[in-house]
């Protein structure tokens, strides 16, 4: 083996070790979720069970309010995403396609707001929402989620729209389309992947959100899945590690699936070919 090859093999080994270290926590979650109890608390833990069980998943699902909280999470997240993307799409078109005074200020706001730490916002949001009786209500949480989903969506969508070559739209208008027609026929389909990707990212961030939901939702029947998971340990006297890991897996699954989907979407060089051809 020549020295160059040997170094490459060395780096590959480092990469594999690093991979194992990074992925291990996620592996351990799934492995624990499927292990029978006696193997979980064994003094000599096995890496995975040869007799996997789904009892822990059943236990996690059977805990009170699991399905209610899944439903709450879905309602909150979907409403947040639909409203945010709808409003943000309009603003993103303005930012990407027009120059107007105040544009820069608007951009500064959209970027700056995303930097505000959520912890710093809980007090004013809680007090204001309490004034309008929106504490312990899903609508209140949706409003707070829009504080991060809106600016994020505006900024991300703007990035997608700006990359749509204006030649396409102009060509459509030269061919006799109206401005609205060009928008519906050209801009909307080309922006679709961007809309999907941004929606999915907004979905993930909202699904994962914890602090606003924790502060605003006190009734057990009104909480989100992340809050449900954070209280999981407190709900039983002895720690049911298997069920905790099963619950964690269930909470993570939608995010994992979506995340892997979007990774590809974003890599799509969508409009690059359209102009050159």
């Amino acid at each position, binding site marked *: 083996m020549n020295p160059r090859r040997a*170094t*490459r093999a060395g*780096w*590959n080994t*480092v*990469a*594999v070790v*690093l*991979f194992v270290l*990074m*992925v291990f*926590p*996620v592996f*351990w*979650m799934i492995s624990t979720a499927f292990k029978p109890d006696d193997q*979980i*608390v064994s003094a000599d833990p096995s890496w995975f069970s040869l007799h996997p069980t789904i009892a822990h998943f059943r236990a996690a699902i059977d805990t009170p309010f699991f399905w209610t909280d899944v439903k709450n999470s879905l309602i909150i997240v979907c409403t947040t995403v639909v409203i945010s993307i709808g409003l943000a799409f309009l*603003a993103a*078109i*303005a930012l990407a*396609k*027009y120059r*107007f005074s105040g544009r*820069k200020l608007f*951009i500064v*706001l959209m*970027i*700056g*707001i995303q*930097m505000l*730490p*959520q*912890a*710093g*916002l*809980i*007090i*004013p949001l*809680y*007090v*204001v929402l309490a*004034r309008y009786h929106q504490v312990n209500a899903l609508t209140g949480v949706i409003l707070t989620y829009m*504080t991060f989903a809106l600016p994020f969506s505006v900024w991300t969508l703007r990035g997608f729209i*700006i990359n749509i070559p*204006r030649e396409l739209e102009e060509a459509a*208008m030269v061919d006799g389309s109206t*401005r609205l027609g060009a928008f519906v026929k050209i801009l909307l389909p080309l922006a679709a992947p961007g809309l999907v990707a941004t929606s999915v990212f907004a979905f993930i961030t909202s699904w*994962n959100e*914890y602090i606003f939901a924790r502060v605003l939702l006190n009734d057990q029947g009104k909480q989100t899945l*992340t809050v449900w*998971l*954070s209280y999981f340990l407190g709900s039983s006297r002895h720690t049911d590690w298997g069920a905790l*890991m099963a*619950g964690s897996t269930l*909470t*993570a699954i939608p*995010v*994992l699936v979506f*995340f*892997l989907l979007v990774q590809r979407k974003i890599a799509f060089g969508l409009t690059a070919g359209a102009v050159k051809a």
Partner: protein
Amino acid sequence: MSQAEGTAVAAGAPGLRRRRFSRGRFLRGSVPYGLIVPVAAAIGAILGYPLYSLVRLSLQHYGLFELISHRGQWVGLDNFRSVLGDAVFWHTLLRTVVFTAVNVSATIVLGTLVALLLVRVSAWARLLLTGGLVLVWATPVVVAVQIWYWMTNFQNGVVNYVLTKLRVGDFFQHDWYATTFSQLGLVTTLVVWGALPFVAISVYASLAQVPRELVEAAEIDGARPWRVFLDVIFPILRPILLILTSLSIIWDFGVFTQPFLLIGQSHIHPGNYLMGVYLFEEGYVKTDFGRGAAISLLMLLMVSAMSVVYVRKMVRMGDVE
């Protein structure tokens, strides 16, 4: 766009140009404003108004009673005086600054190293490691906290088992939650683990811009790897590293979920507060919203000062097009 379109429309209707011009132009000029109004109004209502209330609240005594009657008592700067005169505030601030410095340095240095590694490995190893990084990136924070909690459990935690097996020391029934140092150390591993993929993948993406010939030329000239990195690679990475560092500083300074859930509310006390947790406990848990508002305001001002660099950089990048 608006310019090109303006000439097209004007050329299409020569006879009517004079009369319609100003009105059409006014309408066209108002289109972008019409498009941003919904977002601007929503942001004003859900963020602008609460921030205005935050300033008011910070000047009021606002407890549970005031929360119900919706009316606070004006107390001037009492809340600020009380917070700034509290040793807990200053200790928390110092602890948070140190925590942020450690976490950000670890994230950026390790992330850059992983990115440099990704350039050097074979294609299959790169695919494997990137896949792993994406998986970690996608793990929700609350889920990661539960995994950490399970792995570091003193009785059956796999961390104690592995460390003992590897003869790092005797970790049999070692309690990782016994000291503040160890608690915040665990939080650090959790934060760095979660942030590493984003940094590594971003740096790796901009490493693609480093010209190969330049690196090879430097190597032929006898430059050591460290010099190659400093003189050839680092200047190209500078902008992205600046962005990632400022983002990490802002995120880690305001971190809440990881310390709050991993240390656990029963183990949280003024001696291990980080800024986000301090604010939650003092303002929300103790239902002293006025004082909490003062702390929030101070924290938001500090973070805003820190974000100036980042926001300016991003606006400049976004305004190029």
